[in-house]
């Protein structure tokens, strides 16, 4: 060990390890190369302590987006002959990836929306990384705007973890018809649509949407890796959802000058057309306005609301 090198902090160890791996030749570094290069490993008294520390660091680096590759010609398992390197391209930002001040303001708002909840730390650390791309001033226009995400469903955190780790998950899902079934899916994306969190996930061969509020069991993550899905497939599934919502139209009659009138922006005769994603959820929104809203079409929505009122009366007899 060279003189003058002080004891490293965990951050210094991770940083040095990353630097060593980045500077490695194409064939990567052996475990012994790494243990000789990074002072914290060299200082460990036993081989098992070095191994333990290295295992933890590999996992931390991967979690933070450093794509560590293991090359082992003798086995599919990681053995003593394994060599380590950083995947080509994992530090290469796409050409033309630029953030202007409007983008930065929006990213700051997106991170701020987490308001110390679940993914707040990840959003902030992502923002720090993006700030390394250059100094831009954020826009003053939106500084007084405070968006706040509410991601209180218990399923949110395990689903976000599974997306990050690319794992398969299993949960019970209750459809609006009341039928419940077990689903095994590869979670792809969490989206916020019309006030609801929606999971975009691949089940068998199809990409489907699941409302988080209808997940009625614990989300169990499997050790198995999920299926890979291309960006184009995700885009296509999202476009299908938009097309579906565009097709779902309700015609409502709202009471003049009532809260519903203002809420739906009614004009003249009080008839408004509104798109909706899910009939059961839309019925809930309309029921909140009580007698101020009357559904002219579709009939299924009108009937759903009528039976809803009956269930409220039965529950409050």
């Amino acid at each position, binding site marked *: 060990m060279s003189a003058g090198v002080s004891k490293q902090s965990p951050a210094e160890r991770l*940083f040095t390890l990353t630097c060593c791996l*980045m500077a490695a030749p194409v064939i990567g570094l052996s475990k012994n190369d790494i243990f000789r290069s990074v*002072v914290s490993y060299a200082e460990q008294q036993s081989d098992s302590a070095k191994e333990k520390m290295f295992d933890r660091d590999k996992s931390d680096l991967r979690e933070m987006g450093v794509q560590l590759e293991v090359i082992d010609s003798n086995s599919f398992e990681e053995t003593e002959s394994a060599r380590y390197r950083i995947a080509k391209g994992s530090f290469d930002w796409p050409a033309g990836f630029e953030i202007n001040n409007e983008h930065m303001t929006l990213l700051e708002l997106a991170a701020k929306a987490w308001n110390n909840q679940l993914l707040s730390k990840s*959003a902030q650390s992502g923002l*720090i990384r993006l700030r390394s791309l250059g100094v831009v001033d954020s826009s003053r226009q939106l500084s007084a705007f405070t968006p706040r995400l509410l991601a209180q469903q218990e399923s949110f955190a395990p689903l976000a973890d599974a997306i*990050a780790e690319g794992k398969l998950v299993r949960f019970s899902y209750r459809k609006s018809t009341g039928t419940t079934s077990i689903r095994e899916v590869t979670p792809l994306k969490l989206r916020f649509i019309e006030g609801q969190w929606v999971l975009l996930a691949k089940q068998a061969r199809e990409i489907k949407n699941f409302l988080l509020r209808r997940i009625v069991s614990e989300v169990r993550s499997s050790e198995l890796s999920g299926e890979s899905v291309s960006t184009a497939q995700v885009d296509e599934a999202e476009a299908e959802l938009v097309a579906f919502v565009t097709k779902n139209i309700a015609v409502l009659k709202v009471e003049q000058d009532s809260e519903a009138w203002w809420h739906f922006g009614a004009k003249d005769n009080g008839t408004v057309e509104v798109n909706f994603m899910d009939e059961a959820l839309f019925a809930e929104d309309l029921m909140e306005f009580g007698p101020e809203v009357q559904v002219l079409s579709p009939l299924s929505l009108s009937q759903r609301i009528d039976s809803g009122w009956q269930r409220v009366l039965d529950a409050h007899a």
Partner: protein
Amino acid sequence: MPKQEIDAEDLFNLSLSIVGLVLRDGPMSSKELALHFGYSEKTVVRAVKTIANSEDIGRFETHFYVDEELLEKGEVDFSAGMAALRRPPLLSRRQTTALAAGLDFLAALPQFAGNVALSQIRSQIGSGTIPITILAAPAREETLQAIQQALLDKTQLVASYLNQLGEKSERDIDPLRVDYVGRRHYLRGWCHTNQAVRSFRLDRITKIENTDKPVSEAALLADVPLEVFGQIENETTVEIFATQEASEIFWNFPAIDIHRDPEGNVTGKIQVGSLKALGRHVARYAGQARVLSPRSAVEAVRQFALNARSGTLGPEDQD
């Protein structure tokens, strides 16, 4: 206020990010870096020392040469020795999930409809390019614009407001900020009628006008509480049962004694300012949320459903 504390993961991330910025834009002061990254100068110096202390002891080589003397004077400058590291790695999947979900959330807000910059950054971050449907009425956007202008000009607003009991009033409001919580916009402002900070739902503002009057001294000194429902006076404690799907009812009120059974059903107590307004909050769940007590609250929900079913406004709902 800059964050003072930082864990190993964030310090590592900050060090990588400082490498990227300084190698890209050249030497900077620790003060500038602190401002840019939102950390204290002390934390920036720790991150720079992390960069400095990255020697490869096997090869007796240094990855980065940090000018320690300049660092003492508050200047951050370094050169890459044998380092191949030039910038931080691409965003991790978790960072992408967090930022993409936040951007999706923004894309669902009326004021960002058709926002080109949002569409560009969503596409770059992996949030998607597909526009999200927005149900809000165009009038809401006009209201938002009036408020945002008043916030920038620091001037008072005059608003016609319809509260949840259907009562109309004219309010002089000093705007403090706009919150979007869950799925609703709220104007948080100093209400001159109540001489206190109040929350006003944007879809209940029926008319709004900017004035030239500057916001009051009291407004400038006021604290805006985190929760939009604020202080409830003369509250009634109502016991509620909700299925798992309807359990979000507890997020909308101050709630206590929450118990979840193995099936996910939730029982708990909420504090309600007006029983008359309770009906709508409970009835929307079509029987999946049920008032257990007091009897007056059960009756309030029942009356709301009876009026709604018959399509008539109850006498108490009319102005």
